[in-house]
């Protein structure tokens, strides 16, 4: 870990992300204003001011933007992390099984992945949201469930390579069952790939959530997300620019740091398979 942190380009984005995470978690306690209480006294859509405690200003409904950016950050980060975990869980198991078992099972499983690749999956997410309403749990699961395909492919490729290694042969010879080998020998060795890939999936998932917010299918008010805030802000970017500026800055900075971190980790681990991830 400490070796990793010394690599170029890792410490800075990691520290930044930590800072943003801390602010999102602690922020609501720092301000006197609640994220879901309308300030009927203050001007609505007012510019940032230290005097009335609306540090980021208020939005067009008299909501405190600072509190909302923090609370929205919690949701966006949670969506990013939980959905990525869902996609990892499915993708790692699926890819490891396909790669390890091989043969016809592998061919069939990868055929299925190919078929799923041809589905315009974003459309299914939209349909699901339209169908079942906008429950936050559903957002997590829907996004996670449709974004495991890449993971499955990469893990399968890695597993194929691992299978030819001696320690796996040794495990097979010693009579260990398939499930046990996958659990004990394959999955732990996939960790590097998985970490890098997860770092790069989180920003994509956060963007998907913001896309749903754009279509009006995002989180239910008064809860919010960065995507929803940015979307509201973009509508009034000329009259109340701070409404766009603050949430957009947090969103962009988080996505940027995650991407930088992912790239740097990939360079650091320098496994050729990682670089060919998009293949």
């Amino acid at each position, binding site marked *: 870990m400490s070796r990793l942190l010394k690599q170029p380009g890792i410490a800075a984005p990691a520290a930044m992300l930590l800072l943003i995470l801390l602010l999102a978690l602690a922020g609501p306690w720092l301000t006197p204003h609640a994220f879901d209480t*309308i300030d*009927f006294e203050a001007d609505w859509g007012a510019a940032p001011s230290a005097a009335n405690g609306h540090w980021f200003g208020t939005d*067009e409904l008299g909501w405190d933007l600072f509190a909302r950016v923090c609370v929205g950050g919690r949701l966006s980060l949670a969506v990013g992390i939980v959905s990525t975990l869902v996609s990892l869980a499915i993708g790692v198991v699926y890819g490891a099984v396909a790669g390890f078992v091989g043969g016809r099972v592998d061919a069939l499983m990868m055929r299925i992945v190919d078929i799923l690749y041809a589905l315009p999956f974003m459309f299914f997410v939209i349909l699901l949201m339209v169908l079942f*309403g*906008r429950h936050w749990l559903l957002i997590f699961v829907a996004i996670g469930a449709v974004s495991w395909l890449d993971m499955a492919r990469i893990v399968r490729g890695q597993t194929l390579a691992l299978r030819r290694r001696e320690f796996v042969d040794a495990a097979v010879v010693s009579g260990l069952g398939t499930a046990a080998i996958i659990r004990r020998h394959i999955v732990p060795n996939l960790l590097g790939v998985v970490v890098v890939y997860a770092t790069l999936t989180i920003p994509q998932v956060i963007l998907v959530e913001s896309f749903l917010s754009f279509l009006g299918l995002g989180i*239910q008010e*008064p809860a919010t997300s960065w995507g929803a805030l940015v979307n509201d802000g973009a*509508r009034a970017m*000329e*009259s109340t620019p701070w409404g766009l500026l603050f949430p957009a800055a947090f969103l962009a900075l988080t996505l940027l740091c995650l991407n930088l971190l992912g790239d740097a980790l990939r360079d650091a681990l320098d496994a050729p398979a990682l670089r060919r991830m998009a293949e």
Partner: protein
Amino acid sequence: MATGHDRRVSGSVAVSCLAALLLWIPAIAATLPTTLRIGNGNEPESLDPQRATGVSAGNVLRDLYEGLTGISPTGELIPAAAESWRLREDGLEITFRLRAGLRWSNGDALTARDFAAGLRRVVDPATASGYARMFGVIAGATAIAEGRQPASMLGVEAPDDQTLVIRLDRPAPQLLALLAHPAASPVHRLDLAAATKPGGRIGNGAYRLQRWVVQSQLELVRNPAYWNDARTTIDRVVYLPTEDLNSELKRYRADELDVTTSVPATQAAWIRANLGAELHVATYLGSYFYGLNVTQAPFKGQPGLRRALSMAIDREVIVNKVLNGLAAPAWSFVPPGTRDYTPQVPAWAAWPRQRQLIEARRLYAAAGYTEARPLEVELRYNTSDDHKRIAVVVAAMWKQALGVRVRLVNEEWKVFLQNRKLRRVTQAFRNTWIADANDAMDFAALLTRDHPRNDSGYDNPAYEQWLAAATSVAQPLARRSALQAAERAMLDDAPIVPIYFYASKHLVKPRVRGWHDNILDWHYSKDLRLNCAPSAPC
């Protein structure tokens, strides 16, 4: 593989991409002398005058068709295809005299029979028109709509080419205004026989359809066969679909539109500051309210509680701070400006805010709710920025004034409509009624027992009696007082919580002349002119 070959491959790929690119792009439309470009909101679902129900379709259809009567730029009823009419003394028969020499856009003669055919078509269940009920006062219409009689039995006759006689079941002073509606347009015998086809129809309005590219633009050109074509000055009208109001505003500012369909409420302050002279805000026959489901807990049998919720809402805040002045506060249902009607504002509306709150708290407590045991209620609205903002603010007001715990539920439109109709899961829900005709009955009927859109489930025999009385009397004053008494009774029961009255809001470029605000928000392109400066040709 040889590098040279590769280069040729990639080169030809690039060339074919480019060729495809150029071929696909339609030629830049040649600019005609005078073109009016109108932002039209949602894409019209149809241009069949008897079937289309949307506001955007209506805007186009009024240019493509002309009814017996019409609406002047300032909103008055005027003769259109009919030059005059005569009402029989008992009020049960109207005889229209058509203008001489009327023609369809293809040059065919337009006769009274075509108008009769249009009315028969709208009530015929085979047409599946959403407006069939609107013409229920015409003799036989109800029986036809319900399939008990053929459409040929409708009480309309054309004794000669220029005369149309309409018989009524009961006196209906509002019928003349209804005949200005596109649903009462004549229908050409060729279109009567043909299956539905978009845009191919023959019209009798000041314009005819040139081209319709769905989601892109609807192009109309002037109809030389129109009887009053000499008075038309704009040669070409383009309707552009503009669903996203912010995008529409930007296109208007970039001078790509002459008239917008609306303006985004969040931008009102900016618009007033920068485009104030071009903003037209006018009273409009629409009411925005929250329905309360009176068939289920917690609102069943609780008129006091329902009134408390209504009193707890500060409408001035909603109108001024949320809608930025682009609406009028509502304490009652039928909007001001409705013909032959005085708005029925409850007495508490004039009280100071503090007194309203005290009374609201008293009613709330009387219904059995306390701080420890507050009312928990779900407030449903369909996905839209403005609905969301209003719901959020109302929830905050209910919470602040009474301690009500509100759960906001944003539903997608079709889900929302179905839930409202079923009245099972709904408690409080957003609702809107926009009148089809300038008549208080159009609003009042919504809360009758049998109205299909009575989503509150309101059922009050006294209310039904007042409305029945209003329907049966011919005398305008008696009708008016019956309708007003009905609304007073309804407001006392509070099956709905009025919030605001709509305003029509448009941005209109200074070069567009002859634009008048009117309560129906009907603007015929034939009545507009374009004032083109030599420096900025149209």
